[in-house]
């Protein structure tokens, strides 16, 4: 069911975009629609289809339909296949939602859903530890980035008062001049970089190759990783055109295009090889958007189209190769064109040529545009040099990679033997990459068609009607010369490939971003365990010490800061007999802490209690004194009775365990002094008259009782008493149940 739904939905979305929104968008208008979702939070279900959204929407739905077709055969007979298509469907819908969203929070909703569905897809074969680890890594990196993005969107909301894309684009200068501009740019770029696998956040993408191959073709080459690029393009009119933008976005792109293209060549696994070239191309796109000039935007959009088509095809071809040979180890693959996979080889040749940027394919068109952007106006002097160098080197390395993919894999004579006798895949797996190959060929031969699709997107990103013209043949220009130089360098790189990649193979993992990631995660796991041992796995008395010290500490800080307002020194005098009793209380309390036996401590605590009741006598409160005497007597008796059942060791002084006896004494003193300070405050002259005056005045007249305390307990505040009685009853019930059940438990 999920398959049919996904297939139908992707085709429907593609047609709706093409036929429904197409005429409007091609005419330069925006299709927008909005219903409130959580209007109180500024969140609406808004659709905003401008050229950019339209272009990406077509890619997502169009390639989506091909991937569903491909997957129907690829996943045939696999376990949990229905679940697979649900995940893939969730992903496709999220991705479509992401590019068509007209509200930033809605966009974020879909952004996170692509993360989640990608996680589920990478971990689809969850019995494999590599799949679980890869899924985890992708989730960690992209979620961290997503949080940055959320913060950026909240800052945008606070800066502009709106989350609606339409509102933001209507006043493009608002953010650039805002004090939060730097923070917004940094956070947003961080989000985009993690999603689009920019250096050094690319660590998750190679691990994502654990996903079934249709997923790799879709999420990790054509769509999800482009979400970051989409976001940068969306915000280019709002945040771009500044030096910080150029530095942050542009240079990250350059670093990524070099790292990705270079590291790709050192890979031995076909899918990992493709994954790293994807990273390199994402770097190219990011770099171009970082440059942000009109030619750069044109080049970025053209290359987005080119890359989505050829990379999607290459992944499907990789799947077909693995399907046909039983391996994706480059060391065991070669000469497949003559060994039973000629049709696959033909498709591969076309897309690899487009990847290499050779005519007459779309790749050639976009490569010319890229070089034009690098040389073109608007780039600062040094920036131009950096971009020419970066893009040129990337082009050369990428060409070498394309040669490996087409020549080594399919056409070069080879003596290695794959596990199975190579054979062609069925129609459902052969057709989708062929369609994509036809795409790069068709767009290359008829650049006007590509121009038509890209025009609205470029206009949206450049925020003005963009006059540009795509051609296959530009004439003898400087770009052509540089392009030839790039091709030559690429061939040299291919010739000396082993030498070139040798450093990458011996470079220690600890010095790679993957090593950093593992080290970080390991440190978190170990650190949190240590933390729990340090603070949590402690006996009760340690924790009590912390609670009491925190209470006393906070109280004393507060007292100290408010010393001047406290009504100190307004107390009535006390007689000498009171002082004597108080002294005994203090001595008893000290003895309780100093005595080493439990019995001694309890007895001295009893002394304290009896002295307190003596104080009540002095203060002429016989009822309180009597109550206190009863409680103290009962407590001591109970303690002594219980002691008879306890082992001797339990009765020895153990202390808080945090320090010496002196430290414990100091802590106890601090707590005690705090309690004393509170008591003094409580008995001071009140700021307002107390309600007890009312009780005394009205107890007989209104409540008919002479004993005010009794009347308070049973009438004025009878609810309290009801509660306390309930407490006693529950305690009794609890003890009863505990004892009865405890006995049964020991019998059975």
């Amino acid at each position, binding site marked *: 069911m999920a398959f049919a739904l996904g297939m139908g939905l992707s085709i429907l979305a593609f047609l709706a975009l093409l036929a429904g929104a197409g005429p409007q968008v091609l005419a330069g208008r925006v299709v927008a629609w909005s219903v409130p979702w959580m209007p109180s939070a500024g969140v609406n279900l808004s659709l905003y289809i401008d050229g950019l959204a339209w272009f990406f929407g077509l890619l997502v739905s169009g390639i989506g339909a091909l991937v569903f077709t491909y997957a129907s055969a690829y996943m045939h007979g696999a376990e949990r296949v229905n679940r697979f298509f649900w995940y893939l469907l969730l992903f496709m819908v999220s991705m479509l939602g992401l590019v068509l969203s007209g509200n930033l929070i809605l966009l974020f909703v879909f952004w996170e859903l692509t993360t989640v569905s990608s996680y589920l897809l990478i971990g689809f074969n969850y019995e494999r530890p590599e799949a679980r680890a890869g899924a985890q890594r992708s989730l*960690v990196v992209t979620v961290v980035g997503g949080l940055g993005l959320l913060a950026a969107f909240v800052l945008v909301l606070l800066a502009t008062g709106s989350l609606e894309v339409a509102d933001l684009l209507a006043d493009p200068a608002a953010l650039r001049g805002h004090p939060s501009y730097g923070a917004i740019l940094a956070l947003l770029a961080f989000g985009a970089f993690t999603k689009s696998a920019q250096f050094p956040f690319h660590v998750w993408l190679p691990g994502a190759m654990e996903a079934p191959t249709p997923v790799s073709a879709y999420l990790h080459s054509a769509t999800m990783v482009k979400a970051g690029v989409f976001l940068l393009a969306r915000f280019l009119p709002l945040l771009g055109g500044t030096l910080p933008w150029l530095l942050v976005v542009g240079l990250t792109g350059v670093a990524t295009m070099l790292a990705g293209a270079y590291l790709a060549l050192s890979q031995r696994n076909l899918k990992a090889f493709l994954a790293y070239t994807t990273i390199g191309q994402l770097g190219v796109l990011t770099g171009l958007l970082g440059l942000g000039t009109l030619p750069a935007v044109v080049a970025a959009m053209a290359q987005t189209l080119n890359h989505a088509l050829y990379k999607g095809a290459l992944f499907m071809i990789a799947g077909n190769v693995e399907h046909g040979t039983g391996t994706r180890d480059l060391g065991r693959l070669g000469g497949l064109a003559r060994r039973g996979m000629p049709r696959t080889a033909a498709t591969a040749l076309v897309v690899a040529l487009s990847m290499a940027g050779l005519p007459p394919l779309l790749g050639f068109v976009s490569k010319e545009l890229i070089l034009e952007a690098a040389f073109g106006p608007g780039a600062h002097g040094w920036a131009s040099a950096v971009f020419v160098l970066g893009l040129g080197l990337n082009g050369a390395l990428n060409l070498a990679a394309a040669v490996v993919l087409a020549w080594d894999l399919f056409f070069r004579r080879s003596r290695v033997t794959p596990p199975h006798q190579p054979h062609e895949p069925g129609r459902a797996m052969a057709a989708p990459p062929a369609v994509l190959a036809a795409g790069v060929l068709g767009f290359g031969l008829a650049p006007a068609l590509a121009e038509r699709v890209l025009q609205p997107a470029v206009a949206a990103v450049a925020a003005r009607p963009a006059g540009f013209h795509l051609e296959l043949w530009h004439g003898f220009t400087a770009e052509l010369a540089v392009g030839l130089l790039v091709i030559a360098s690429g061939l040299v790189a291919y010739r000396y490939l082993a030498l070139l990649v040798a450093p990458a193979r011996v470079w220690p993992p600890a010095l790679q971003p993957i090593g950093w990631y593992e080290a970080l995660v390991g440190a978190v796991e170990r650190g949190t365990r240590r933390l729990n041992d340090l*603070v949590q796995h402690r006996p009760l008395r340690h924790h009590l010490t912390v609670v009491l010290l925190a209470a006393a500490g906070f109280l004393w800080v507060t007292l100290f800061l408010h010393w001047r307002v406290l009504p100190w020194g307004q107390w009535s005098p006390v007689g000498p007999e009171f002082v004597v009793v108080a002294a005994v209380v203090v001595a008893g309390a000290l003895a309780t802490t100093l005595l080493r036996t439990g019995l001694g401590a309890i007895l001295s605590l009893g002394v304290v209690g009896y002295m307190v009741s003596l104080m009540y006598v002095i203060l002429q409160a016989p009822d309180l004194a009597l109550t206190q005497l009863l409680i103290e007597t009962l407590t001591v008796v109970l303690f002594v009775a219980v002691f008879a059942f306890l082992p001797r060791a339990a009765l020895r002084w153990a202390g808080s365990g945090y320090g010496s006896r002196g430290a414990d004494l100091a802590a106890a003193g601090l707590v005690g002094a705090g309690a004393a300070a509170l008591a003094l*405050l409580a008995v*001071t002259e009140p700021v307002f008259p107390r309600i007890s005056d009312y009780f005394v005045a009205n107890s007989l007249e209104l409540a008919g009782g002479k004993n005010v305390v009794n009347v308070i307990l049973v009438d004025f505040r009878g609810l309290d008493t009801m509660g306390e009685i309930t407490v006693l009853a529950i305690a009794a019930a609890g003890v009863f149940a505990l004892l009865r059940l405890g006995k049964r438990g020991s019998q059975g």
Partner: protein
Amino acid sequence: MSSPLVFLPVLLPLLGGIVLWLARRSLGVGRWGSLALAAVTLGVEVALLGLVRARGVQVMFAGGWVPPFGITLVVDLTSAIMLVVSGIVGLCVLGHAVQTLDPDRERHGFYALYQFLFMGINGAFVTGDIFNLFVFFEVMLIASYALVSLGSEPGQLRGGVHYLVTNLVSSTLFVAAVGTLYGLAGTLNLADLAVKVARAPDPAVFTIPAAVFIVVFGVKSALFPLYFWLPASYPAAPLPVTAVFAGMLTKVGVYAVLRVFSLVFTHDPGYLHAALLVVAGFTMLLGVLGAVGYDNWKRILSVHIVSQVGYMIMGIGFLSVAGLAAAIFFIVHQILVKTALFLIAGLAERATGAYDLGEMGGLAGRYPVMASLFMVAGLSLAGVPPLSGFFGKFLLIRAGLAQGEVAVVAVAIVVSFFTLYSMMKIWRYAFWGEEKPAGLRPVPAALYLPAAALVAFSVVLGLGGEALLVLSQQAAAQLLDGTAYVMAVLGAR
């Protein structure tokens, strides 16, 4: 408006608890009786929320004594929301308990103690008197202690003692704080206290008892550095007990902070609420790091409670309509989702007989519904859209950044990453991997119901969160303004 309905959320569990205690030998009466009682209580609470929305704050003067002399029960929007959530949790957890508890515990007063617990919880939500709040805290404490220990397994008693002793210390501090406050203000009625603190010639003196109240409620709601009792005791209890504790108990502490620090102690936010924000930051961070460091389902979730409480306190610390509204939204979300996660842990235990992640694996294959429920609840807890947790987080971040509280918001954002990390740890070990243990047991469909209902709430509150958001904003405005509350209590004179 005066209405006796206000007392029912306390009275029903009390009377029902007594009956259930007397009839504890009968499993039928215990199970069906307590379920019916919980359903009726929930109905009353929903009606009360409707009443408060339609007619404003509802009060009842206990014994007919006018405030501030007698005890006043007050239900404003915040209280009503808390009551409804309490009712939902009460019913859902009970639905799990009647299917999983051992008959020994059932026959020894579990259902009665459960109702007494809710008497204390609901009492804390409806009382308008600070000493009465103490009393209901005690009811809650003693009932929960009995529930933690009932069954007397070795870990249970150790955890129970840890729980009881720490909370008794906090009770002592509570009495000291109430005594000091009464000594200074001469009253215990919250509305009256609000008036007195606002009218005092130099309200700074009230900062002293306020500081002690932060510690008192801090122990109850498990704030840094007062939370260590929670991870030490919660995992030891039987699952339904842990689930209801996780959902409700700490939130009663949070509710107390919310009430007292938005109604009474608003005179010195530069000190008191700033302190709350600092504490909130550390609570969020240490709670989540503690959770990451465990490999046991129940433990991870237990320590997580601490972290999530930090978010709520952060919202309260902002002391703005946006902040308080976000806090209320977050509290509702959190109670439902946290309880759901515990109930799902119970489902996994039914299947595997374990809570240790090392002893289970591959559950996604044979229990797809369980896996889906966990995925949704776990993502919601971590604040992944479009679930309720996301909007709670979003509203908190927005409220904080709007007030320039960058540091604590940054902590909140980092913490939400680690939350997801620890949820995915459960996912990765329990639901992914090779299937184990060997003898997986079937999980009856009816046992899924309570957890599924709670998860459904999270989805509804995410996709249709506008209603709750508007309600939270109204509740927050009512809290911060205070006039409606004070007028309802004192204006009746």
